[in-house]
């Protein structure tokens, strides 16, 4: 572990007698890990916390997470990820390095990024999975925060996620938002929306049938309102992705949660649990 990071987390999970336990919970600097939250029953469930309330200019954060074979864990950030102003133009960076063994399940609910005026940020997530494993991953970005209440006052934010299955690239998911160069309210950018959310499910069984079920679940749900636009599509192999553009962070959040709940409870038959946490 390295002093150059403003905050570090290392979480390792291993299987013991058919149950998943956290074998390493290391943190340093501005990063904290909560105690195990009992909400999810036998599944370890942790909040990943930034004690500074947000990241400041030029800071570099690292999260290293590993799941041994046959483990299941749930991780989430405690709050949206605030990126403070970068007046000097230096990038703020967060790296997530995730390795997932065979026949595991990782639920990794990253909250939306909220960049302040002038913020610059890169989030690099690399997830390496082995066969039989599943992943639920969320992410997002908003129109940001600025003292005068104007939207999209940040400079540039890139959220890049690369997911590999048995060494083969499954998905290179790279959202690049650059209000400094582009007009965000135009056709093809954010248009009328103020919040973008993404959810990715990696599952070898993902195909036309699963897509159809996930589509019909959102078609009829009460969260499908005029304030959200969404769509989903299949990845080249073993995955489905949901994208949402919402006029407010809450409506789009609820829609994503409904989608994930359907997958967890109706498709996977996992036990219900409440993710949170105050919003």
């Amino acid at each position, binding site marked *: 572990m390295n002093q150059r990071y403003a905050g570090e987390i290392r979480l390792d999970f291993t299987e013991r007698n058919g149950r998943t336990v956290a074998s390493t919970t290391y943190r340093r600097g501005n990063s904290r890990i909560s105690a195990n939250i009992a909400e999810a029953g036998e599944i370890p469930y942790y909040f990943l916390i930034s004690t500074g309330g947000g990241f400041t200019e030029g800071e570099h954060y690292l999260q290293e997470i590993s799941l041994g074979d046959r483990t299941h864990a749930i991780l989430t950030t405690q709050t949206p990820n605030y990126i403070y102003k970068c007046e000097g133009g230096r990038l703020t960076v967060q790296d997530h390095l995730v390795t997932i063994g065979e026949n595991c399940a990782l639920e990794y609910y990253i909250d939306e990024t909220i960049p302040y005026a002038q913020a610059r940020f890169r989030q690099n997530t690399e997830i390496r999975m082995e066969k039989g494993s599943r992943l639920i991953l969320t992410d997002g970005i908003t129109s940001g925060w600025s003292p005068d209440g104007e939207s999209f006052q940040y400079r540039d934010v*890139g959220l*890049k996620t690369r997911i590999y299955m048995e060494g083969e*690239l*499954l*998905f*290179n*998911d*790279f*959202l*690049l*938002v650059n209000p400094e*160069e*582009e007009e965000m309210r*135009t*056709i*093809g*950018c*954010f*248009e009328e*929306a103020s919040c*973008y959310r993404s959810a990715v499910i990696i599952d070898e069984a993902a195909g036309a049938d699963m897509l159809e079920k996930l*589509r019909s679940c959102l078609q009829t749900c009460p969260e499908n309102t005029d304030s959200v*636009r*969404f*769509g*989903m*599509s*299949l*990845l*080249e192999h073993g995955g489905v*992705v949901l*994208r949402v*553009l919402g006029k407010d962070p809450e409506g789009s959040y609820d829609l994503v949660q409904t989608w994930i709940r359907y997958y967890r409870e109706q498709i996977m038959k996992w036990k219900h649990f409440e993710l949170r946490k105050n919003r």
Partner: protein
Amino acid sequence: MQKDGGEQVEMKKEILEAFQICDSTFPIGTFNHSFGMENYLFRRVIRKAPQFREWLENYYRSQFRYGEGLLVLLCCRAMEKDAEENTKEDLLRYDDLITKSVAAAETREGTRMIAAQMLILIRKIYGDTIPLLNWYAEQTDSGHAYGNPAIAFSIFAYSKGLSCEEAFNLYGYSVASTLVQNAVRSVPLGQREGQVILHDVIQLIADLYEKTAGLDEDSLGANTPGLELAQICHETQEARLFMS
């Protein structure tokens, strides 16, 4: 371009040969694909020329720039600098990376279909005279590559002695002219209005070359929310003229 008179004539012929591949009437199925534009038509976000222009310009600033535009530059550079084996390795990696960067299944499928048609037609015209192109066609036929028209075009353009910049501009023009023709059929957009927009996009492509030339593989596949969501939503759209 060479200053010598004879060479100049030769290069002009080769520019024309590349231009033939870039013509919007080159029958490789591009007229079937709107790359999400039709979803904006369906939602009545694009109604006339101004909204189509806005969409097209944003398409170039993000999806083209970080997608097929950057791909052309990466492929040309790989052919310029590398030994043949390394070039092939690079091209296959780019083919995989660009395909896996696209969340919308229809857009991936459309891209593949256009690449397959392009490879067939170039080989019908040029036979087996471009070995790397034959190799790429074999890779796509055998399932070792997905197929991308920007890669196929780059291989062709390089074999004709075009520079990276010429290949970037020509390929960019090719995509724009097709999208404008597709918009003329569907927006509706007048032929003359379409040509004015296309002319302005030529300048945009030239500017984008300057901004894109410094990028490397790490930037490949970056996307913008609205463009991508429209491509995803086209999949379930009720009334459709285009396949993507």
